[in-house]
């Protein structure tokens, strides 16, 4: 509890760097002193690293990946964003998936090296893009193209597409 409270306050503080470095410095020190789970240097703890995820506090990157693939029927970790891929393979995978008119969730791993590492560790797959369908890792762009050609992808996305209609 202390940890998440500290996190919230820290985030608030980060939004106002001037305030943090001046009058309120001792206040935050106090918070950290009473918190048992926060290490001495808050800047190195993963809860306190800059985050672009907007997820709830206290989640590790692995938790975030797990949550991503569980909650999003079609999840792609890619270079760039679906509207503007930064790699030909990512572009190809997005183009194939868009054929099926399914809700596509994406994260840009170029923006977050730690997320990139976490995804690689989660899937044990060395390259990007990486595509997960209904929680299952299906592979990269070669595999998605191959599944598209064989009809396997259509079969896999059948009920996903149905939900959206």
């Amino acid at each position, binding site marked *: 509890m202390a940890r998440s409270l500290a996190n919230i306050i820290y985030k608030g503080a980060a939004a106002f760097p001037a305030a943090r470095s001046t009058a309120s410095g001792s206040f935050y020190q106090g918070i950290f002193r009473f918190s048992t789970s926060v290490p001495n240097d808050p800047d190195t703890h993963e809860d306190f690293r800059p985050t672009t995820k907007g997820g709830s506090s206290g989640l590790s990157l692995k938790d975030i990946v797990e949550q991503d693939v569980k909650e999003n029927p079609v999840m792609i970790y890619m270079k760039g964003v679906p509207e503007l891929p930064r790699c*030909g393979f990512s572009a190809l995978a997005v183009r194939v998936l868009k054929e099926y008119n399914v809700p596509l969730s994406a994260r840009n791993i170029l923006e977050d090296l730690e997320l990139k590492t976490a995804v690689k560790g989660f899937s044990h797959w060395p390259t990007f893009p990486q595509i997960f369908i209904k929680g299952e890792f299906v592979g*990269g762009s070669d595999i998605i193209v191959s*599944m598209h050609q064989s009809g396997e992808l259509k079969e896999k996305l059948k009920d996903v597409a149905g939900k959206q209609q």
Partner: protein
Amino acid sequence: MASRMAAISRASRIKTKLETALQAAVLEVEDVSHQHAGHAAVREMEGGAQETHFNVRIVSAKFHGQNLVKRHRMVYELLSDELNSGLHALSITAKTPSEAAVDTQP
């Protein structure tokens, strides 16, 4: 000249590693790094776009009974040293001899 020699060496290392482990009936390794010369991740690397992207086509009986993810994993595992030393991406076609035979029919 130096870059050309280096390109040959990675391609031939890939070839040797896959050939030995997979006893491939067909094995084609094509360096397509030049196609990705402007790639963000490649630009950031020292020395620019050299030996980073390859197309690999493998026909091997060892792929029998393995789905695509497993086949690709087999290839990635064999090439993990390369992936850790600057090999950036592989485009992999992995088929069994019988699947490859179907493909070549008119």
